[in-house]
C-alpha cells in the first residue's frame, strides 16, 4: 500500500460554516487541534454519544473521565477511526476525518490491552508503524532506538511480548504509538492493567514523555484521581454527553452539576431547596447560601471536606457526634453523624492531627460551598 501524503488524505472542510457553533469550551480557531462537533452515535436503542462537543488544544494533556458506559471509549475509538459516527464532525487541524480510515489518520491509539503483536519482538513491534510508512530502513532503526532509549526499554528489544511484565508491555505499547510522532496520541485506560506502584510511576512517566515529545495526549480513564493529577484539562462524561470540560481545579471547585461534584473528588452533598438567601437542607434545616452562580432553585449543596471546619459543640451550622477519625499523615479525616434520622454522614478534613475522638460532640462550620443542580447535562 502506498503512503499518501497527509495533505492529500485530509480533505479541506468549510471552516466558516461550523465555526463556533454551540461550542462553549473554547474557540475553534485558536489552538484547537481536534474539534468534536455535535457527534452522535447510537447502538440500537442505546445512545453512546449524544451531541458531544469539545475542543482539544495543541500540546495539551487531555482526559476523558467518566464511569464505564458513559461513552468515553466510543468517542476515543471514533477519533481513532474504529467507530462510525451517526452524525456530527470530528476535525483534526481543521480537516474532517470522516472519510479517513484509521491507518491514514495522524492519530495513534494505545490500547487498553496494549495489543502488542505476539509474534513479533519488541523492536519489530515498535518498528511496525514506521515500516508501514515505507520509511528508509536506517531511519526506522534510528527512530526505534531513540524511542526505546527514551522509554528505557532498549534491553528488551529482542524479547517477545509474552516475556514482558505488565509495566514493560505498557512502555512498549506507548513506544510503538509515540514512534510514529502522531499529532494526537490516544490512550485507552493506559494505567488500568498495572499494579499500584507501577501505576504511580507511570503517571509521572507519561507526563514527562508528553513534554519530551510534544505530542497532544488524550487519555480515557474512569479514575478521577488519575485524570486530575495528570491532565491539563478534563472532560467529564456521563450518559453520552460531556457534563463539564474544565481544568482539574475548575472541575473540583466549580462542578457543573451533582454528577461532576460526586464523581470528581470527595464531597458532602446535602439535598435541599434554595430560598431567597438561604439553602433549606432537607436534613439540617436552613443553612447559609454560600454561592449559587447558576441560580439553581433545587439541588445539592456541595461541601468539600477540607472546607468543613470542626468547631465547639453548639457553634457552626450543623451539630453532630464524631463517629470515626482516620489519620492519613498529612491530614486527618473526621466522620461525624448528626442525630437527624436519615441524614448523611458528614466528612471534614483537617491538616495534621485532629483534636477530637469518636463520641465527641462537635459543631461543623463552613464558609465556602456551591449549590449544583441534580440534572445531567
Amino acid at each position, binding site marked *: 500500500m502506498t503512503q499518501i501524503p497527509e495533505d492529500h488524505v485530509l*480533505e479541506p472542510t468549510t471552516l466558516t460554516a461550523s465555526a463556533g457553533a454551540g461550542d462553549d469550551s473554547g474557540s475553534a480557531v485558536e489552538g484547537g487541534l481536534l474539534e468534536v462537533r455535535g457527534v452522535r452515535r447510537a447502538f440500537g436503542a442505546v445512545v453512546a454519544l449524544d451531541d458531544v462537543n469539545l475542543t482539544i488544544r495543541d500540546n495539551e494533556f487531555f482526559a476523558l473521565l467518566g464511569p464505564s458506559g458513559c461513552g468515553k471509549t466510543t468517542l476515543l475509538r471514533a477519533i481513532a477511526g474504529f467507530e*462510525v459516527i451517526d*452524525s*456530527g*464532525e470530528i476535525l483534526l487541524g481543521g480537516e*474532517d476525518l*470522516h*472519510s*479517513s*480510515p484509521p491507518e491514514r489518520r495522524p492519530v495513534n491509539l494505545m490500547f487498553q490491552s496494549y495489543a502488542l503483536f505476539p509474534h513479533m519482538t519488541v523492536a519489530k513491534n515498535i518498528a511496525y508503524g514506521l515500516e508501514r510508512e515505507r520509511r528508509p530502513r536506517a531511519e526506522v532503526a534510528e527512530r526505534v532506538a531513540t524511542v526505546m532509549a527514551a522509554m528505557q526499554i532498549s534491553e528488551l528489544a529482542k524479547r517477545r511480548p509474552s516475556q514482558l511484565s505488565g509495566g514493560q508491555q505498557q512502555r512498549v505499547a506507548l513506544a510503538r504509538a509515540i514512534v510514529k510522532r502522531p499529532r494526537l496520541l490516544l490512550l485507552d485506560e493506559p494505567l488500568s492493567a498495572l499494579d499500584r506502584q507501577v501505576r504511580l510511576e507511570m503517571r509521572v512517566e507519561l507526563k514527562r514523555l508528553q513534554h519530551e515529545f510534544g505530542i497532544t495526549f488524550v487519555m480515557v480513564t474512569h479514575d478521577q484521581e488519575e485524570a486530575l493529577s495528570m491532565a491539563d484539562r478534563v472532560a467529564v462524561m456521563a450518559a453520552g454527553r460531556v457534563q463539564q470540560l474544565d481544568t482539574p481545579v475548575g472541575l473540583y471547585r466549580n462542578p457543573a452539576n451533582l454528577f461532576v461534584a460526586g464523581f470528581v473528588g470527595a464531597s458532602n452533598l446535602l439535598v435541599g431547596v434554595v430560598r431567597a438567601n438561604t439553602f433549606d437542607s432537607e436534613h439540617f434545616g436552613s443553612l447559609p447560601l454560600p454561592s449559587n452562580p447558576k441560580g439553581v432553585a433545587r439541588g445539592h449543596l456541595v461541601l468539600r471536606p477540607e472546607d468543613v471546619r470542626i468547631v465547639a459543640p453548639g457553634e457552626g451550622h450543623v451539630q453532630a457526634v464524631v463517629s470515626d477519625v482516620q489519620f492519613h499523615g498529612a491530614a486527618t479525616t473526621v466522620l461525624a453523624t448528626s442525630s437527624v434520622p436519615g441524614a448523611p454522614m458528614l466528612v471534614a478534613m483537617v491538616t495534621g492531627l485532629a483534636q477530637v475522638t469518636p463520641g465527641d460532640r462537635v459543631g461543623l462550620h463552613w464558609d465556602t460551598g456551591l449549590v449544583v443542580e441534580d440534572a445531567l447535562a
Partner: protein
Amino acid sequence: MPAQKAHWQSRSRRRARAGLLGPGLLLMAVLSIAPLVLVIAYAFMTRGRFGGVVPGFSLDSWARVLEPIYLGVLWNSIVVATITTLLALAIGFPVAFVISRLPPQWRMVALVAVVLPFWTNFLIRTYAWVVLLNDVGPMNKGLAELGVISEPLGLLYSEPAVIIGLLYSYLPLMILPIYASLSSSEREIAEAASDLGARPWRVFRDVYIPLSVPGIILGGIFVFVPSIGNFVIPDLMGGGKSVLLGNVIRDQYLTARDWPFGSVLILVMLAILVALFAAQAVASRRLTGKLTR
C-alpha cells in the same frame, strides 16, 4: 455533516468483505450448495431412459421409498447406526472419563493415542479387521490354539462385523467431545458435590452425566451420521450380506442409474441428519439454561 462523503468504513469493509468472503463463498456455492440443490431437484424429476434424469416433475420416486424393501433397509440402517452409537457411548464415556482424570502430561499422550489409529488410512484400517476376524486369521487361530474355541467364531461377514467396523472407525469421534465437556473447568462442581456429601453414584448422576451431555450428543451425531451413510464397511466386512442406506444410495447412482430415486434416499438421510442437529440444538439450549439457572 456533509452527506456525500461516505465513511471510510463502509467502503473499506465492503472491499474487505468481498476479498475475504468472495472466493470462499464462491467455492462453497459452486462445489457444495449447487450440487446439493441439484440432488434435491433430481428427487422431483423423472428417471432417464438410460439412467440419469430427464426434466419433468415426478413424485414417483417418493412412492418407492415406502415400499417394504426400502423401509426395511432404512430401518436396518437406523438400527445398525444406533447400536454403533450406543456402543461407542458405552466405551467412549469411560475412556473420556479416565483420560480427563489423568495427570495433564499423560492426558495429551492418551488423546494422541486415541486419535492415532484415526490418522491411518481408513480402508487399510478396516481391512485390518478383515484380516484379524477372518475364520483362518490370527484371532481364530490364536483362540483355537489356546483351546478357547474349537470352531472359528464366524464373526466376519455379518451385521455384528459391520458394527465392529463402524465402531472402530468412529469411536474417537465419541471420545473426544465427551472428553472436551468433562475436562472443562466445571470439574470443581463435582468436587463441590462430593464435598457436600453426595455419594459417588449421585455425583455421577447429578453432576458428571449432565455436564457431559453436550459432548455425548455431539459425539452421538459424529458417530451416527457417518455410520448411516457408510457403504465401504458393509462392503468389506459385511460380505455383501448386510445392506445399509449408504449402499443403496451409492448403487442407485453407480449401477442402477436411477438418480431420482437415489436423490430421494439422500433427502431421507439428510432429513434424519437435520432432525438430529435440531434435537442437539434444543437439548444444548435447554441444558445451558439449566446450568446457568
